[in-house]
């Protein structure tokens, strides 16, 4: 993460940060949120907030970790409101048939991401930041706003939960034969 190449308040630098970090932040939120549109909305909202606070950003923390922190918090807020929105959605669709599911989408849906969405989002975020983005504990702590000790605890808890869930269905190395359909089912935060 080129943290020292960004100047706080520079719009050109923020444009560069957006081009670099937007796909990575979007994938992080995709591992937390089941709905890709929600992940995109939260990612965009996170960059809006980051742009408004960009003049106050301090280069002592990596810029991408800083945006990750905003985005994860935004995703947590979104997930807290999912239950209320789900009730409204059920009432709105009352009496109508459920939308047809795309078989191709179901066939390509990764079950590892489904398992990630089944654990608490703070644990899932720590897993993605470590195993996908390659952050170390200090960078994860900066991205999540917690101490490094808390990061170690979360990584351990997330590993235990994922191993329990994944080994119950299939081995970690085998592809999924029966992708589950838990599109909007989240674990407790």
């Amino acid at each position, binding site marked *: 993460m080129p943290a020292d190449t960004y100047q706080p308040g520079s719009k050109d630098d923020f444009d560069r940060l957006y081009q670099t970090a937007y796909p990575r932040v979007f994938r992080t939120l995709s591992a937390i949120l089941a709905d890709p549109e929600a992940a995109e909305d939260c990612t965009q909202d996170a960059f809006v907030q980051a742009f408004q606070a960009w003049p106050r950003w301090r280069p002592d923390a990596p810029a991408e970790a800083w945006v990750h922190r905003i985005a994860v918090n935004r995703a947590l807020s979104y997930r807290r409101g999912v239950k209320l929105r789900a009730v409204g959605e059920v009432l709105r669709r009352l009496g109508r048939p459920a939308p047809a599911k795309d078989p191709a989408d179901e066939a390509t849906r990764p079950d590892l991401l489904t398992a990630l969405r089944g654990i608490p989002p703070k644990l899932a975020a720590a897993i993605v930041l470590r*195993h996908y983005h390659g952050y170390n504990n200090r960078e994860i702590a900066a991205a999540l706003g917690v101490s490094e000790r808390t990061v170690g605890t979360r990584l351990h808890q997330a590993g235990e939960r994922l191993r329990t869930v994944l080994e119950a269905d299939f081995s970690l190395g085998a592809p999924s034969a029966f992708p589950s359909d838990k599109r909007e089912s989240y674990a407790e935060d």
Partner: protein
Amino acid sequence: MPKTEDDPLGPEFSRRLRGELDRVQPRFSSPRYLAASGRRVTWRLAPAVLGVSLIGILALSLFAATGSPNPVVWSERVVTAIHPNGATPTPSATPQEHRGARPATPSRQGEDNSSPEPSERPEPTEQPEPTEQPEPTGRPEPAESPEPAQSHSGDSSQVRPGSGSSGGGDSGSD
């Protein structure tokens, strides 16, 4: 799969997670922060616009009240409206005190001296006429009254009859 204490899921999990997340491609969408920046500038200018509007409304109302576009006239009008009497000594004084204190103020006395009343002042100086009316010489009563208090004024008249009677006595004795 080698699994360590620090990485209980092993490298296979990282490889598989990387492969699945790389398949997730974000849709192309324009950055929202570019649109939000315009609204942000608008809200940042809102206080200045509000202040300029208030000043403009105030200036128009003052222009309508005074009929003059000169701000100096506005300030004079405001001062006149706030202080209609410039001679009030203290703003804390009650109206009763003002009424009682007004005749004693030196400024009012100065106004009286400068007024054309001095032409009426000579009236008391011309009044000795009434004092001259009760002349003791013109009145016979003080001369005839036997009061001793008026003996000073009638000494000359009393001396004359006395001197006359004494002279008559002499002639009578003759």
